[in-house]
């Protein structure tokens, strides 16, 4: 089987790397890592300690520190706006992971082919990811305008009814996900392109000889081999989607009503608009835990899949 041969190759590669690393691994590499560790600790640990400390206080800006224990956390359990924001964040995240993953992977497969002007087209495709989010959000806002926006005009050209886009509660999430997909599919594409470039050529030769069609080659060969890359892309995408702020803030500020108020947006309102630092910190802590837990789940899946692939035979 062609798959088995691929697995074999992989396993032997891994073994070689492992044995190599054992020899070199005796040297301590800590001096290389230490400066970065110091920097990261300094910029991460202090704010975190401070946030935890604030989260057990009732600290309204302008008033003295007042220890309240877990009162803020208990209050969160009954805060409808907070609870709803979590559900919304999860929905937003799932959509903003799935859509860019699909489009990004397709784009990578496409741009992996030889074609004229590939560099230019690929460059244009990557532009949304590189453009300044605040700047593009302002332009999207105007394009979404239900009466005067260019999007509804484009719809009318192909005979579709005008939409309310970000101006109605039931379409706002989908519209924002559209922007998010437009912006972040390129990241998925770049990562998957990396995966495609590392694929060995021989399994494809034997598959072709066995008479596998393009779809079969993708499904049985490419997909399993780029799976680790897909999972990396998925992890990054998930973290970013959970934390998404600039785009939502600049386009809807969480509206209409609270229809697009994700946890990060709510956190912003509480901490900055309502100046309730203690309560806001409690939200930050829970929100962070949510991100960590979800990331660990994905990492776990990744290791699991790695093990399965490594032992395919």
């Amino acid at each position, binding site marked *: 089987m062609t798959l088995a041969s691929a697995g074999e190759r992989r396993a032997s590669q891994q073994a070689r790397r492992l044995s190599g690393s054992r020899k070199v691994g005796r040297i301590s590499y800590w001096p290389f*890592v230490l400066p*970065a560790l110091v920097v990261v600790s300094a910029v991460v640990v202090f704010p975190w300690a401070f946030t935890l400390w604030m989260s057990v206080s009732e600290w309204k800006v302008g008033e003295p520190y007042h220890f309240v224990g877990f009162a803020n956390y208990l209050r969160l359990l009954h805060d409808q706006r907070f609870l709803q924001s979590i559900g919304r964040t999860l929905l937003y995240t799932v959509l903003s992971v799935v859509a860019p993953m699909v489009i990004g992977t397709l784009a990578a497969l*496409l741009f992996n082919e030889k074609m004229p002007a590939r560099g230019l087209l690929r460059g244009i495709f990557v532009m949304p990811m590189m453009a300044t989010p605040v700047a593009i959000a302002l332009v999207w806002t105007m394009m979404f305008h239900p009466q005067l926006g260019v999007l509804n*005009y484009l719809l009318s050209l192909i005979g579709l009814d005008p939409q309310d886009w970000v101006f109605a509660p039931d379409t706002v999430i989908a519209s924002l996900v559209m922007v998010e997909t*437009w912006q972040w599919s390129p990241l998925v594409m770049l990562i998957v392109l990396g995966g495609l470039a590392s694929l060995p050529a021989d399994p494809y030769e034997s598959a072709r000889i066995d008479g596998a069609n393009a779809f079969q080659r993708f499904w049985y060969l490419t997909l399993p081999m780029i799976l680790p890359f897909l999972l990396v892309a998925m992890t990054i995408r998930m973290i970013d989607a959970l934390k998404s702020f600039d785009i939502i803030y600049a386009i809807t500020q969480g509206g209409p009503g609270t229809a697009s108020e994700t946890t990060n947006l709510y*956190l912003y309102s509480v901490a900055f608009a309502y100046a309730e630092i203690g309560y806001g910190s409690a939200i930050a802590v829970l929100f962070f835990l949510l991100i960590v837990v979800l990331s660990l789940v994905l990492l776990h899946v990744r290791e699991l899949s790695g093990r399965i692939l490594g032992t395919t035979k």
Partner: protein
Amino acid sequence: MSAATRRRMMRFASQLGTLFCAALLVSPALFFFLWMISLSLKLEIDNGAYPPIFIPTHIAWKNYSGVFASNNFFLYFWNSIVVTGTATLLALIVGVPAGYGIARMKASKSAIVIMIARMTPGLSYLIPMFLIFQWLGLLGTLAPQIIIHLVVTVPIVIWVMIGYFETTPLELEEAAMIDGANRWQIFSQVTLPIARPGIVVSLILSVIFSWNNFIFGVVLAGRDTRTLPVAVYNMLSFEQVSWGPLAAAALVVTFPVLVLTIVAQRQIVAGLTAGAVKGG
């Protein structure tokens, strides 16, 4: 018709098909940026028109001259360069060796610690950082923004470099070690030169994400220390619609990054292709 001609035609047709799909794929991005240019060149009255006007009746260059003439534009531009440049340079200095160390130690689990910086909601850094910088008396300077931008740049550099170093061959290093080189010599003379494409990618990505950062500047920047994205958002005036000037300002801010993208897309793809994101 010979088989060869038919094959050539088939290949041509499939190339055409690929090209068509690619064009379809890039059309949203292309349309968006063209529309942005159009907005930036029109008077307000045309920007609100329906059906929309794509090609301006009067070209409103004053949208652009307004951006450059607005007080402090060049100062903000310079601030952006200083903040992004310094934060990226520092990130490379600490991040490249760290990526090397982590990759060689096979300690990809420890990279998770680095990822925590990426997982933390950016907002939760702001108030603690604001208070400590105020206490240190640094608020009127660019230092707070440079330091907080490290939160963005260091993880990117380490992340990209781990993956890169994992794929660079160990044999050369082992040979150098047998020749009696110490690990610092090995790193600087053997590994680093091979890793140049990876460094270029991490540099480009770090520059772009630092350049684009908005929220840190809102709280930490003052009148003289603002960066460009904050300055653009500040053009939103209460009581006055101003899409043209906004689009012009937005384009001016994004322009350097877009040029960098188009120019360096080959390096970005090549660098990432070298296995850059495999690790971590």
